[in-house]
């Protein structure tokens, strides 16, 4: 797809900037996470500060990261450090009764060793206080300093999987768009951070809006909508900085990209034929398949996990409602029936929940259980939009508006917890929760 030179140059600058930012993570201002709601059924757990050995000081507080992750999940209520009765470093030093009286079920402990070569060795273990057993023990060897946080997230995932049976989604990333007003100018930045908001890296800066980031299933690419050409187009950008290309620059609307589960196709909304309809683009051949053929607006497609069905939003009934199409039979069916307005459907990775923006005294995120048709409104924040599931389908990030300021919120699909992700100097919008960085075993 040909780009004009000026825009191309501009584009490259942004892209280069973004690319560079990947290698300078600590420079960038972090998302601040507030765990806003108290969690009722969270289980007490003790994360003992990791024993630090070796010659090099440890740059990251691994146990703090783990503790924070567990707290964020809404399922655990880690003891504060000052509440710990002791800081055992090994099983031999563990006096179970002391922990039992604190109503602690599990103790997480471990060690970090800074090696002379600048790499780190880590180990973690999970002790079942009541059964007086170690239920998890794992080691990481030769970890570079830059990956310590990631190891901490991996540990969190392992612990989470061990204790809940569900893979954790800590070692994942978020993509989102920040909006900052600087010098009377609005600056849009597409950023990628760790799931805990740390380690943010700009992917794209623009003074034009950036919308609808979508992770490729392998986590290597982001598709998003920019207005850098003056009208909307869909761009696919490789996160390793190797490639960036506009894949849809048709006349009219080019929006709402959604990767198929196998990553070979991109569903998107185009109005090149005069009316917004859903198309599927083969990413190898760039061939388009027009999916919906209706005079009404069809947009915001999302794939079922098996890639056989597309869910999308259509206003053919006068108000937006969710429809689905069987891609083998082209059979269309209405899916949402609750209320007058249901838009922006997102299918959970496990195929169970369809999240949507539901208008009901404002806009909230609602979940429809695909298995049994249950419908429940998940949020009570203001102007909620752009829901996106964590890869373990356990949590959901969405954009909302608080005090006139765009922020992100994370909720458990069971409504157990919520947390706010915000930046100090601007607004955060258009979240997209990325896939597992290391696929769960």
């Amino acid at each position: 797809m040909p780009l004009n030179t000026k825009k191309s140059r501009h584009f490259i600058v942004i892209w280069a900037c973004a690319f560079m930012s990947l290698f300078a993570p600590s420079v960038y201002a972090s998302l601040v996470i507030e765990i806003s709601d108290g969690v009722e059924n969270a289980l007490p757990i003790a994360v003992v500060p990791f024993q630090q050995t070796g010659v090099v000081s440890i740059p990251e507080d691994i146990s703090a990261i783990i503790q924070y992750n567990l707290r964020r999940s809404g399922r655990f209520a880690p003891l504060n450090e000052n509440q710990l009765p002791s800081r055992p470093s090994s099983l031999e030093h563990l006096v179970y009764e002391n922990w039992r009286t604190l109503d602690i079920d599990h103790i997480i402990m471990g060690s970090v060793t800074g090696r002379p070569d600048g790499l780190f060795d880590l180990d973690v273990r999970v002790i079942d206080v009541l059964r007086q057993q170690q239920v998890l023990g794992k080691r990481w060897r030769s970890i570079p300093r830059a990956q310590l946080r990631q190891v901490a997230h991996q540990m969190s995932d392992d612990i989470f999987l061990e204790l809940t049976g569900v893979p954790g989604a800590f070692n994942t990333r978020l993509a989102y768009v920040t909006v900052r007003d600087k010098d009377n100018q609005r600056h849009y930045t597409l950023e990628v951070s760790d799931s805990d908001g740390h380690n943010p890296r700009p992917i794209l800066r623009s003074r034009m809006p950036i919308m609808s980031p979508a992770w490729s299933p392998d986590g290597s690419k982001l598709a998003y909508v920019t207005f850098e050409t003056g009208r909307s187009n869909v761009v696919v950008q490789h996160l390793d900085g190797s490639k960036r290309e506009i894949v849809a620059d048709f006349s009219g609307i080019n929006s709402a990209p959604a990767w198929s589960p196998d990553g070979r196709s991109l569903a998107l909304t185009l109005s090149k034929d005069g009316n917004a309809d859903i198309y599927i683009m083969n990413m190898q051949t760039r061939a388009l398949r027009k999916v919906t053929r209706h005079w009404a607006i069809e947009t915001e497609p999302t794939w079922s996990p098996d890639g056989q069905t597309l869910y999308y939003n259509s206003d053919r009934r006068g108000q937006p409602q969710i429809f689905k199409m069987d891609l083998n039979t082209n059979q269309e069916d209405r899916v949402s029936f609750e209320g007058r307005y249901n838009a922006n459907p997102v299918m959970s990775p496990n195929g169970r929940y369809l999240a949507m923006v539901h208008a009901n005294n404002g806009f909230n995120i609602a979940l429809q259980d695909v298995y049994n048709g249950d419908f429940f409104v998940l949020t009570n924040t203001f102007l909620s939009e752009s829901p996106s599931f964590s890869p373990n389908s356990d949590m959901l990030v969405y954009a909302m508006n608080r005090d006139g300021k765009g922020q992100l919120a994370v909720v458990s699909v069971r409504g157990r917890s919520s947390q706010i992700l915000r930046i100090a100097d601007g607004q955060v919008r258009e979240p997209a929760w990325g896939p597992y960085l290391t696929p769960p075993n």
Partner: protein
Amino acid sequence: MMSFIKRYPLSTLSALVLHLVLGLALTSNWLASDAQVFKMAQVSDDKPVTEPRIMSQPMETFAVDQQLVAQQLQRIQDQEQAKQQEQARLVEEARKTEERLAQIRREQEAEARRAEQARREADIERQRLAAERQRAAEEQRRAEEARKLAQEAERRRQQAEQQAVQMTKEAEARRQQAEQQVAQIAQEGERRRQLAEAEAQRIAAESDRQRQAEEQRLRELEALQRQAQLQAQQESERQKQLQEQIRQQELERARLEAQAVAAQKLREQLEAEALRQRLADEEAARQREISRQRELVSLRESYISAISAKVRENWRTPAEISSEAQCELAITQEPNGRVISVRTENCNAQATPQFRQAAERAVFRASPLPQPAVEELFERNIRFIFKP
């Protein structure tokens, strides 16, 4: 006061007397009523204690009666037989009397025949005497002829006369004798006849008497028969009565029997009751045992369910657990309820490792486990199905 008495001595006296009388009346009344109450109380104390009747005697009485009835019947039958024999004897006697009457009649006839014979004999004598008289006349004529013929003849005649006179005299004597004899014979015959008649009369009278006697006897017999009949009637009456009596007795017996049966039944009932009571007692004991067992079982159940409940109370997990997940928990505990160990066994497909571990943790968290209501119910090894 004294002045009042002095002023109205009569009134005071009469008032005193009246009070005394009233007082006496009240006192006696109270005593009487008290005595009454006491007596009544005594009467009510004297109430006889009802004792259960012994029911074997009526049965014995009945047995004796039967014998008696048989005896009586036998006696009646014997009497009947004797009466019949008597009747037969009377009939025989009557027959014999008749025979005798016939004999007497025959004898009378023979007597009459004999009198006839005598009469005929007397007639023959008279004819013989007439023939003699003819012959005597012939002789006279011959004598005359002889007197005529012979003066000699006169002598002869005289002789003959003399003879003849003599002879006449003799004949006369003879005749007279014969007449006398005839008269005698007639007399005799008459006498005989009279005698026979008397005899016949006597016989007739006798027979009459006999007949009368017979009749009398017959009447008596009849009377006897009637009596016998009456007796028989009476007998039958009596028999009837007896029958009635028997029937009554039978009824009585039946009643008694019924009573006895009832009593037997009652006894049986009582026995059954007693047996039932005994059985009931045993049953009750058994039931008590069973209910104790059951109670123990239910106590055990409630013990187990108390444990299960406490485990469930202590159930918590961060994991998502299927509501269908279940395992058997095999718990080993100390007598004070402290959990020594716990294992999950026979888990179903929904029971994830997280569920199993959480269940085991719940058991440990529930330690010490609730104590049983009864110490004997304590089980060191407890096993139950756990479902959150």
